[in-house]
């Protein structure tokens, strides 16, 4: 009997066939209801996969909500999946490519349009219009800006908050610096920062951390107060950094570091681990952030702190407001059931349970704010947040599809300004030139 040997060619053919089958299987959409949480499918129930991006400490609250929802709607079975915020976008972009998105997913303002424009999130306007008790008027105006296509809502926001000033009350008192007032100006901010800065080297305490960078907050927090702007809204297709007003404003800000030494250098910032950590470690007396940071401080801070208005500039008082929301994906097999979840989750009661009562703050529904003010986890001056949102906060925050590229391209030159290696006037000229082709992509076709 002739021995049959496996030839190299034959073996490679078999290998390729096995590999090809595996690859095709991997490319196939996930089975409906597949869950990363490993929950068993509930018989006869419609399953909903919901993708969140919570920090681990907030996840139990989410699980509690979902449990209550499943009890309230026994025909539905919600399976939540949580992904660290930094990994969320890439993970769900990949799932979108594979046609395996969950039914409902979290979306931040900065990349909402990426998902909306390319059809990954369905139009929710009909659901909004047909839901008698939804009341779109209850949503703060800035909260709805980033989530529309052709005027129709594709994402329902859950929060929208202004960037405000966190300040260390103990440090102010110890240094004899007067507390911020409703009339505080940018000059008051600088004076306080100078008075609060003390020590040298490793023992140095900085008065303020939060110099401008070419990101979403540059317009409203650093340039509008001087009557200047980085980009035009809502088109985001022109750079205005090389105007005299913008140069004057940026030079004023950069002097915090290079002239007054009241804010960390990039190396010192790296050591502190950023404004949040520096503030929590009492190495920074003031910094700028939204309300979503307050639960961390409530839990961990060993000092007295509060939130206050972003100061008035020579021309105007403005600050950026930003937020996130949830949408139903194109891959959802049960968009009606998905709407049931979104409607309940982002109702007044849902927002009170998730964001207002927990002190996380900035709920998108006006009706949920009172519960936030009463929350033991909210900062003492919590009402300032809503005042800012209702009066001078604007949602002018780089939310077009190429926002990340605009920031990166400008940052390569702005870095040199922060390092003291390039004057502002020279840098803004270069940034304006560099950004032309990137911003041009936002021109109407």
């Amino acid at each position, binding site marked *: 009997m002739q021995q049959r040997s496996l030839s190299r060619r034959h073996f490679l053919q078999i290998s390729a066939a096995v590999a090809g089958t595996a690859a095709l299987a991997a490319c196939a959409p996930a089975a409906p209801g597949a869950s990363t949480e490993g929950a068993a499918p509930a018989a006869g129930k419609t399953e909903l996969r919901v993708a969140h991006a919570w920090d681990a400490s907030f996840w139990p609250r989410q699980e509690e909500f979902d449990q209550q929802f499943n009890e309230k709607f026994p025909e539905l079975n919600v399976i939540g999946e949580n992904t660290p915020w930094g990994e969320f976008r890439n993970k769900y972009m990949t799932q979108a490519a594979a046609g395996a998105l969950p039914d409902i997913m979290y979306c931040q303002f900065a990349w909402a349009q990426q998902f909306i424009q390319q059809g990954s999130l369905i139009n929710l306007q009909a659901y909004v219009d047909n839901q008698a008790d939804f009341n779109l008027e209850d949503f703060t105006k800035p909260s709805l800006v980033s989530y529309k296509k052709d005027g129709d809502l594709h994402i329902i926001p859950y929060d929208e908050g202004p960037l405000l000033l966190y300040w260390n009350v103990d440090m102010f008192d110890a240094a004899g610096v007067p507390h911020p007032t409703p009339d505080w100006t940018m000059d008051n901010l600088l004076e306080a920062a100078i008075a609060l800065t003390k020590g040298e080297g490793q023992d140095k305490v900085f008065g303020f951390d939060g110099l401008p960078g070419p990101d979403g907050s540059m317009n409203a927090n650093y340039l509008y107060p001087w009557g200047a702007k980085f980009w035009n809204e809502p088109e985001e297709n022109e750079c205005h950094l090389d105007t005299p007003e913008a140069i004057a404003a940026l030079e004023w800000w950069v002097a915090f570091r290079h002239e007054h030494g009241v804010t960390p250098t990039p*190396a010192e910032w790296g050591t502190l681990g950023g404004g949040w950590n520096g503030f929590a470690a009492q190495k920074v007396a003031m910094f700028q952030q939204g309300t979503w940071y307050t639960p961390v401080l409530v839990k961990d801070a060993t000092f007295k702190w509060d939130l206050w208005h972003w100061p008035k500039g020579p021309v105007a008082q403005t600050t950026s407001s930003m937020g996130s929301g949830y949408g139903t994906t194109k891959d959802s097999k049960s968009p009606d059931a998905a709407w049931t979840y979104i409607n309940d989750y982002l109702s007044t009661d849902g927002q009170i349970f998730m964001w207002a009562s927990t002190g996380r703050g900035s709920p998108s529904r006006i009706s949920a704010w009172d519960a936030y003010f009463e929350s033991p986890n909210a900062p003492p001056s919590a009402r300032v947040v809503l005042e800012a949102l209702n009066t001078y906060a604007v949602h002018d925050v780089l939310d077009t599809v190429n926002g990340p590229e605009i920031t990166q391209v400008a940052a390569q030159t702005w*870095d040199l300004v922060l390092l003291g290696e390039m004057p502002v006037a020279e840098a803004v000229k270069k940034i304006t030139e560099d950004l032309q082709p990137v911003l041009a992509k936002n021109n109407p076709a």
Partner: protein
Amino acid sequence: MQATLPTRRQGIGKMALREERAFWLFISPWLIGFLAFTGGPILASLGISFTEYSILSPPRFLGLENYRQLVEDDLFYKSVINTVYFVGVGVPLGLLLAFMMAIALNQKLRGQTWFRTIFYLPSVVSGIAVALLWGWLLNSDYGLINYMLSLVGIQGPQWLFSTTWVMPALILMSLWGVGGSMVVFLAGLQGIPEHLYEAAEIDGAGQWAKFWNVTIPMMSPVIFFNLVVTIIGAFQIFDQVYIMTNGRGGPANASLVYVLYLYRNGFEYFKMGYASALASVLFLIILGITIFQFAVARRWVYYEGGEPK
């Protein structure tokens, strides 16, 4: 009458056939894995490089447009220059250090095994852990390196936050992982027959002459292997730079290495077509350099049994 010659198959005995089957069986997990998870994506990436593809919408064929844009892209050249700097300085320094350490650890010393373990250990530590560790070592305020420099009266630079020093900092960090090359060198050194040194001694060779005329020629295949492998790895540096510069390749793109730029285009701007074109060009660069190395190797690599098959 026609003579019948035995075919190759007929010439294989039962034992040899069993061995051949076992060979294919054992190699199959790797081969299937390669075809499914590496070969397929490589081909897909090549195809995507001719398209505009943002992941969320179907690819749109562009022909050679991505490659044309690449030629006009300043950051492409910047990333190539940064990477060539890293490879050009880091690889020779790393190989030299690894070779010197291997020679030192090839001596008959007390605690030799302990030293070998200690020097090899860093090369098996995860790249992310190494990056985090070196982030602290290079910290300009609290870092051990600047502290040691201060002991001899030198004020250390701001390393990762300096456009001048960020690349030297990354090269310094890469030297920490030379243990892998060192082990290969050590194995090579231990494979040099003792009689060659004895013959050289009889001919009156001193330490230097023995090193130059025996050690180096006998080690040349090992040096060549390490050179090829290290250059390929160095061109693909990514994770440490990503971690140490917060994913930015800063300051001012001073540490924007090639794969980081590729990642930025693919996973921050979602220009998958352009990122794939970058990947294809990197493949060609590495392929070209490797072919060049093999071509030049004939002039300086000595194989005891003749040319390698």
